[in-house]
């Protein structure tokens, strides 16, 4: 498997580590007051545990730890293993993110 790091170019997958589905977003919540603990827990349960686990194209996190140490978001087909696209995570490098979290 070869992964085209947007910064380093195409590299052997041994240089990368895999985290998984990039779709779940970490919930934000007000520390005191605001939403009930139950709801917050539900939201985090969803974020931490539940997966679509699609057979087909999936957005997923890869870390180029054996290279430029950038976190990447790839679109890959889980049936054919083909990569459709590989983009840098919003906070890779020093760029100011368009909008936080994305």
């Amino acid at each position: 498997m070869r992964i085209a790091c947007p910064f380093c170019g195409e590299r052997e997958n041994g240089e990368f580590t895999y985290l998984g589905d990039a779709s779940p977003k970490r919930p934000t919540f007000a520390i005191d007051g605001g939403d009930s603990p139950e709801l917050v827990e539900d939201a985090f349960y969803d974020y931490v545990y539940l997966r679509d686990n699609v057979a087909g194209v999936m957005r997923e996190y890869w870390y180029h730890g054996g290279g430029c140490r950038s976190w990447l978001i790839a679109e890959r087909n889980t049936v054919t293993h083909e990569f459709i696209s590989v983009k840098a995570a919003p906070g890779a490098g020093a760029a100011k993110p368009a909008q936080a979290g994305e």
Partner: protein
Amino acid sequence: MADFSWNTQTPLAKALVPGRHGAAGATAGVTLTEVRDLVLMQVMARRGKAADTAKAAKKLLGAEPPATPKAVAGKGATLIWSGPDQFTVFAPRGDEAAQLDAMNNAFAGVASLSDQCDGRCLIRVSGPRARDMIAKFSSLDLDDSVFPVGTAANTSVDHTAVNFWRAADGADGHPVYNMLVFTSFADSLWHVIADSSMEYGFEATSARAA
């Protein structure tokens, strides 16, 4: 009051045995050189400060840091791409403290610096069979059409990160590659490189950075 001597030791103190090793033959297929006494500074632009960092670099080092995996020569230093909006400054060690201060001042507020003078060990690989030898442990494509002089790459060897760049060809006309390896891994990686070189015969030496 006892006095203290602060002799330095390189991570290759034991591994590097100067001289000829491996297959005999008129000329060694590979030459391995430990390049000593370096100044290494990792420069990471602050959020939104990539341009300012580049300016500061230009001002101090006479060269813009590479925006893509390349190594560019500046005033008495080489700027090696080491990730998005970051690079490593490599220079021969002179007045180390002064060199570091100069950088700390030049980049103050625009970039975060990390002193790596002792964090890495530089191994230089050259000779007619260097490329065949490197192919045994590196998945990089070193063909001239892909990896010309001045190309840099952050890659991994034996599952450990290495900063790799191609210097100007040697006097013998053969390519010269630099490998910056983590200090604690140097002894181990040296063995990998030496083992890979045995079939071509290799010469092991060390030299001051110049």
